[in-house]
């Protein structure tokens, strides 16, 4: 593996981690919100 390929792979990994870092708590918030709405209007 060349150093350019290694750098590119590292950036892809960083990209995945960065998006998971912010999307995981965001998804938790959205799920909690939807549960509230469904529970109140549909349940």
């Amino acid at each position, binding site marked *: 593996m060349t150093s350019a390929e290694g*750098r*590119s792979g590292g*950036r892809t990994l*960083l*990209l995945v981690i*960065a*998006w998971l*870092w*912010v999307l995981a*708590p*965001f998804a*938790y*918030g*959205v799920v*909690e*919100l*939807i549960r*509230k*709405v469904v*529970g*109140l*209007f549909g349940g």
Partner: protein
Amino acid sequence: MAVPGFLARSRIVAPPGWTRWLVPPAALSIHLSIGQAYAWSVFKTPLEKTLGLSGTQSGLPFQLGIVMLGLSAAFGGTLVERNGPRWAMAVATVCFSTGFLLAALGVATGQFWLVVAGYGGVGGIGLGIGYISPVSTLIKWFPDRPGMATGIAIMGFGGGALIASPWSSAMLGTSPTTGDIATAFLIHGIVYAVFMTLGVLIVRVPADDWRPARAAAQTAAKPMISTANVSAANALKTPQFWCLWIVLCLNVTAGIGILEKAAPMITDFFKHTSAPVSTASAAGFVALLSLTNMLGRFVWSSTSDLVGRKNIYRFYLGVGALLYLVIALTTNGSKLVFVLCAMLILSFYGGGFATLPAYLKDLFGTYQVGAIHGRLLTAWSAAGVLGPLIVDGIADSQKAAGKTGPDLYQLSFWIMIGLLVVGFVANECVRPVKEKFHEPTGQTAVGSEA
């Protein structure tokens, strides 16, 4: 003021091959955190019970926080432009987290003033600097899709409360003691510091000669998109700035009018119908409005990249006025119509916030767009007073006059229609900025002095 090496703008110029898609998560790590401010209400009742406070007193940390947000965004904007996004994100992280730590100390020692000064004062500076910290950087990375880019970040501010509200509630439990509240503040301070640090570490600014492949062709074709730059000081002298100030203020006022009183409003509206709304269902209505407020920030702001900024504000303000008209005319005839109209109005409220940085970029260029945005956020502070003042004041006076149901709010809705029409006219007055306000070519390098 010298900026430490690690935080300096020169240290974060992206190397060739750096992906711009790392900048939105950097921005989101800040906005999802500071958006916690809108979940402050979770702490109100526990603080009132344990420290013996009134409802007004327990709201003080939040109110001071919003005031400090407006002030620090307005006065710190130029500093943020000069020192760069890493410095701004680091300042926001330190201030926001320290605010929680001071609040923890205040609760633990029974000194409520420390909660107000800590969360509201110090934390509020973190809110303002954090809110504007990624804006100009995102616009520079996404000149082809500025609405979408800033929409993602500003959607995060709406999403922050969605995360914090259930998380803080779970941490506090059903009957928290002062020790539990202090511990919760402490944990918030530490967790947010770690979470926001991601943004500080990965944010990068594009090199001066960096351009995405699509940008040049797109920006050259549209008359309302300027390629010139205007300084923050000069922007204040233009009628365009003040037209947009009116547009933002009135669009936010119209949204807050519903948002701030959503639960009692829907309960009052359908009280005398065959299908009254329970307190629990009213809470669901509030949650639904939060969702559309958040989604509107991304969806409408991204749409503005396709249809243009002036057109999307025509849509927010014009259709918003029509939706208020539908509510005013149908009153409590249909719950579905009422809920759908309110959802759309709140999506326009969120969209108005999120589209603004791109509108400013179109008019004033990227040179000091963050600082100009910060100054324009004073319209938010004004609307935060104006909206509740209108709706609460009228509802109280109608109640005193013996009225009930939709009659409590009808006059407010007609006023909102009038305000939105005024906002629509202000948006129509927006024209390209005159050449005399433009910066001379070659003197608008990124981060240069204001």
